[in-house]
């Protein structure tokens, strides 16, 4: 049973991107791309050849592969509903956070390897914002883990399985804070709108998009698929905190899937009604997310 979350993630992740795009199109009064457009894009790119600049080294080629590999292993750690994840052990939430960080490190290294000043700028912003997002993620996970079981060092599967209606009734406030903090981290990590605009191709304002400008063909397909998986896996983290589990696996899987789609629609709505924040305000947003996580943690530890 424990391979179901991984299969679902591998299959449905690009659909989430399509769903977000469709919501944005509806808000903009357009018909929008087909919902399956991300799959077509990835398929098309996989059949193209890659072009490598002569100034780049193996770091540039390793970037997309290592990033995708890191996200794939992180996906294998992520449960859905009360269905356990493929790999699960005590403390895997720290591995989860650092697998994503490893992927980010290689994306940044590949961007720096091109020697393009624009990509260097995007890389520096990416590293800056992820530095601020990481404490919010880890402290929030620690707060929920402490609430659910009583020790911060447990597995993601156990955390998700302990988010029950009773936990919500007992300490909904902590879960709400952590969920809001995670939503901010989610928007920042996936380069979504209050932090970064996934549609803009104006180098001066971009963060994630600018780092992958020089990748082409299958490499770019890996990057797109990795980004979709990251969108899915961090989304599953939020949904796991928010959607209470009943204990029946089928019902939990169904409610979690609905939760994922609701999250995608929510992200689409946020992108449609908000503008991108100034870069200086983004750090404030992420430190605010950390403050919410710390608040959840101290509310949990108060004696």
């Amino acid at each position, binding site marked *: 049973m424990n391979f179901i979350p991984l299969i679902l993630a591998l299959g449905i992740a690009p659909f989430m991107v399509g769903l977000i795009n469709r919501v944005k199109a509806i808000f903009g009064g357009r018909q929008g791309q087909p919902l399956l457009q991300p799959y077509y894009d990835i398929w098309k790119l996989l059949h193209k050849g890659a072009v490598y600049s002569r100034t780049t080294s193996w770091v540039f080629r390793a970037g997309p592969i290592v990033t995708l590999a890191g996200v794939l292993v992180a996906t294998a750690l992520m449960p859905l509903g009360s269905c356990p994840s493929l790999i699960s052990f005590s403390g895997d939430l720290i591995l989860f956070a650092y697998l994503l960080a490893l992927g980010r490190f290689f994306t940044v290294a590949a961007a720096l390897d091109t020697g393009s000043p624009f990509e260097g700028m995007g890389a520096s912003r990416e590293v800056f914002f992820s530095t601020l997002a990481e404490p919010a993620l880890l402290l929030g996970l620690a707060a929920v883990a402490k609430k659910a079981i009583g020790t911060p060092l447990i597995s993601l599967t156990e955390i998700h399985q302990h988010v029950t209606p009773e936990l919500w009734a007992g300490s909904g406030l902590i879960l709400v804070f952590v969920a809001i903090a995670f939503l901010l981290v989610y928007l920042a990590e996936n380069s979504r709108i209050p932090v970064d605009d996934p549609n803009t191709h104006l180098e001066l304002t971009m963060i994630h998009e600018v780092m992958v400008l020089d990748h082409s063909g299958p490499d770019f397909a890996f990057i797109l698929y990795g980004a979709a998986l990251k969108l899915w896996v961090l989304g599953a983290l939020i949904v796991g905190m928010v959607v209470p589990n009943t204990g029946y696996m089928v019902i939990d899987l169904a409610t979690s899937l609905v939760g994922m789609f609701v999250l995608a629609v929510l992200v689409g709505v946020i992108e449609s009604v908000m503008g991108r924040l100034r870069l200086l305000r983004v750090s*404030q947003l992420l430190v605010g997310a950390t*403050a919410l996580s*710390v608040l959840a943690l101290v*509310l949990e*530890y*108060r004696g």
Partner: protein
Amino acid sequence: MTAFAEIILVFVLLTNFTLLASARLSTCIRQVAAQGVVLGLLPLLVGPEGPGARLFLVAAVMLVVKGIVFPKLLFRSLRNANVVHESTPIVGHTASIVLGIGILIVSFWFTSRFPLPAGQQPVSTLVLPVALATLLSGFLLIVIRRLALMQVVGYLVLENDIFVFGVGLAHEEPLLIEMGILLDVFVAVLVMGIAMFHISRTFDHIDVDQLSQLRD
């Protein structure tokens, strides 16, 4: 009832953070007003004999004074001073949130070993840490902002803190003391508003940093 009281106390903590974070002065005025009004509901929830006419009176007066009169006074001086943002605070807005996190941790740690008089049980275990965190946030706002208006806001946060402490520990404050404190604060805000008006008219700004030199 305690659950609702805790939600109010956590709301106070959140408004402390938004006050530290926001550069826009009108947002700060609204935040501190919201903090005061929501706190006015606290005695209704924790009073020993349940909500009575007297407690409703206190809540209503708090609503009028902190929710309507203070914001009106402050918005008036904001218009006179002709400023929208605090653009160059002494400590930046992101750094102030980090300080706020530090304050939060220190207050929870410190009050966990705070000796209380025997037989005095606070309404909720959150009362003491929230009171200490609000106190420190109010002082911090006064110290790290340059504009005179933000210092009035910090003063109002301090007043809200006294209210948390009093109601949380004594379950209810005598009506006379509560009204006395409100009158004091009202006069103080009024006087500070007049002072700000004179400062902005004489110097064309309300930056207190530039008031350090004495001249004829």
